[in-house]
C-alpha cells in the first residue's frame, strides 16, 4: 500500500519549494498585480508628524542601511525625502552605515533634485556623509556636531556651509528621520539623541520588518512616527502622493506599492507551506513515521 500523498510530500526536495517561492514573486510581478493600499493609523501618524513640522525648517535625514536592505527601505527613503522637500524643509543628509553614503546620494539625484530642481547645495540641502563609531557618532552629535563632523561630505568646513554654519548639536533640527536597518540605527537615535532632549525635535523612523519589533516600545512617546517594512512604505506613499503629486516620474515613489503585489502571493504561499508541513508530519506520525 503506497504511502499517502501527504507523507511522500514530507520528503519533497526543498528546491521545489525554492521554485514555488520564486514563481510566487515573478508571476504577479510580470502580471503587474496591484492592490489599493488603505493607510493605517501608524502610517498616517508618521505623515501627520512630518506635516506638523513648520515649513522650511532644518531637518536631518539619516540613511542607516546598506544595499542589502535597499529593497525594503529605499521606497520609504524616496517618499520621506519627497515629502520633506515638498514642505520646503532644509535637509541635511548623513549615514551611520559605511555603505549608506552612495544610497543617500542616489536618493538626492533621483528624488530631491529631479522633483525639486530649485534645491541648491549648501543653502537648501547639505551632506555630512559617514563617520565610524556607531552610537558614538550620535552621542557626540547630541552635544557637539562640529567636533563629530569637522567637514561636510565634500571636505568643506561646516563654517563655510551656510546651512550648517550655526549648527551646534542635534537640538538644532526640528525633525530627525532615521531610515534604519538595524545597529546602529533608530534605537541609537532614540537612546543618544532623543533621550537627552526629548522635546527638542520630532523623531520619525522607517524600519525593516526584522527590526520593527524592537522599535515598537518607543512608539509614540519617544518616536512620533514609524513606518513598518514595505507595508508601511506603501501606505505612506499613498498619502504623500495624494497631497504632493510629483511633477514627473511618479513611479519613483511607487516602489512600495509595486512590491506589495508579489508580497500577497508569497505570504499566502508561506501559510500554505506551514499548514502542509504540519499535515504531512501528522500523517507521517500516524503511520509510525520517523520520530
Amino acid at each position, binding site marked *: 500500500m503506497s504511502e499517502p500523498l501527504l507523507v511522500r510530500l514530507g520528503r519533497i526536495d526543498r528546491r521545489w519549494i525554492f521554485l514555488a517561492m520564486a514563481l510566487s514573486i515573478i508571476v504577479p510581478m510580470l502580471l503587474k498585480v496591484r492592490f489599493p493600499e488603505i493607510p493605517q493609523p501608524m502610517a498616517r501618524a508618521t505623515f501627520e508628524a512630518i506635516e506638523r513640522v513648520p515649513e522650511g525648517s532644518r531637518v536631518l535625514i539619516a540613511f542607516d542601511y546598506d544595499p542589502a536592505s535597499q529593497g525594503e527601505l529605499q521606497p520609504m527613503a524616496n517618499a520621506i525625502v519627497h515629502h520633506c522637500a515638498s514642505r520646503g524643509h532644509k535637509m541635511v543628509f548623513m549615514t551611520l552605515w559605511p555603505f549608506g553614503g552612495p544610497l543617500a546620494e542616489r536618493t538626492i539625484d533621483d528624488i530631491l533634485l529631479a522633483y525639486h530642481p530649485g534645491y541648491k547645495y549648501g543653502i537648501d540641502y547639505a551632506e555630512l556623509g559617514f563617520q565610524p563609531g556607531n552610537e558614538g557618532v550620535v552621542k557626540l552629535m547630541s*552635544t*557637539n556636531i562640529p567636533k563629530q563632523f569637522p567637514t561636510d561630505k565634500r571636505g568643506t568646513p561646516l563654517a563655510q556651509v551656510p546651512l550648517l554654519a550655526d549648527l*551646534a548639536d542635534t*537640538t538644532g533640527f526640528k525633525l530627525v528621520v532615521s531610515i534604519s536597518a538595524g545597529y546602529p540605527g533608530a534605537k541609537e537615535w532614540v537612546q543618544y539623541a532623543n533621550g*537627552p*532632549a*526629548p*522635546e527638542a525635535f520630532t523623531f520619525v523612523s522607517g524600519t525593516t520588518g526584522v527590526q520593527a*519589533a*524592537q522599535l515598537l516600545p518607543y512608539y509614540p512617546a519617544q518616536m512620533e512616527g514609524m513606518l513598518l517594512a514595505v507595508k508601511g512604505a506603501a501606505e505612506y506613499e499613498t498619502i504623500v502622493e495624494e497631497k504632493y503629486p510629483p511633477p514627473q516620474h511618479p513611479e519613483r515613489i511607487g516602489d512600495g506599492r509595486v512590491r506589495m503585489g508579489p508580497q500577497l502571493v508569497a505570504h499566502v504561499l508561506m501559510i500554505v507551506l506551514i499548514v502542509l508541513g504540519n499535515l504531512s508530519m501528522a500523517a507521517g506520525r500516524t503511520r509510525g513515521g520517523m520520530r
Partner: protein
Amino acid sequence: MIDRRIQVRRGVEAVLAAGIPAAGILASASAAFAQGDAAVASAAAEKDAWIDPARVPLLVALIVACGLIVAAIALARSGVPLKIRKLAALDAVDEAVGRATEMGRSVLFVPGIQDMNDVQTVAGITVLGPVAKTAAEYDARLEVPTSRSLVMVAARETVQAAHFAAGRPETYNEGNITYITDEQFAYVSAVVGRMVREKPAACFYMGAFYAESLLFAENGNSIGAIQIAGTAEPSQLPFFVAACDYTLIGEEFFAASAYLSGERDQLGSIKGQDFVKLAVAGVILAGVALATVAAVAPDGGAASLFRSFQSALGG
C-alpha cells in the same frame, strides 16, 4: 524642557587638558592646551550648577539600579546560597543526550558564529560544560564545529574539563572540536552538510545567531533530532521558538549560563537584575494606579501627581 540644560561647554575645555584620563603619557599636551582657545564663559548669567537639574531623576535611578546589583554581587561573594528557578531547557539535556546514546547517534553542539568578545558566545561555551559532562557520562560522541579559532580553544578546554569532572579523561577526543571557517555562510553549509550525513539525534544551538538559525533548525527537524536552542538575539528568537523543542529565551540564556557556571559574581548579578526588575515592576504598578485614579478623577490631586511622575521618568 528645551533650554533647561545649561550649555557651559567652551568654558570647561581649558580644564580638559589637565584631566585627560586615558593618555597620562601626554603631560606636554596639557601645558600646550592650557592656553587654548579663549574660554568663552557661558553667556547665561545663571549660576553654573554642578549637576544638570533635569538629570537628577536619572541619577537617582542609576544609583538605585547599580546599588542593587553591586549589593547582590557582594551578597553572593559572602557565600549566601543563591537559587535560580528550574529552566525547562536544562532539564531536557539529559533526555536529549540519553536518546542519542540509545540510538547510537552523535550529539551536535553549535556555539554560534560570533567570537569570544560576544557575551552570547561566552554563555554558549558555559552551557557546553554540562552538555559535555552528560555526553561523557553516557559515552555519547559530542561534535562541536566552531567558526572562530578562539571559540575552538575555549570549547576544547571546557569539554576536556567536563570529561575530567565525569571521571573519564581518556574518552576526551580533541578531534571532535574543529574550526571550520570565519565566513558565515561557508560555516553554515559545512555544518548543515555534516548534519545531513551523520544525522545527530540531539542538536544544541547556544550562542549568537543571525540568519542561519533557520538553516540549522530546518535541517535538524528534517533528520528528526531533538533541538535545544539558546540565544539573546531578538530577531532570531521567533524562529528558534517555532522550530526547536526547547528554547532559552533571551535572559533565560544568561541565567542558565550563570547557574551552570556557578560563579558567584554571575549568580549575584542575575539576582541583582531580579531586584531591579522587581523595582521597575513596582514603579509600573504605582504608575498604573496613579493613571487610573487620574482617569477617574481628572482634576483630583492624583492627576497632577501622575503628570509629575511622567515627567520625572521622561515619559
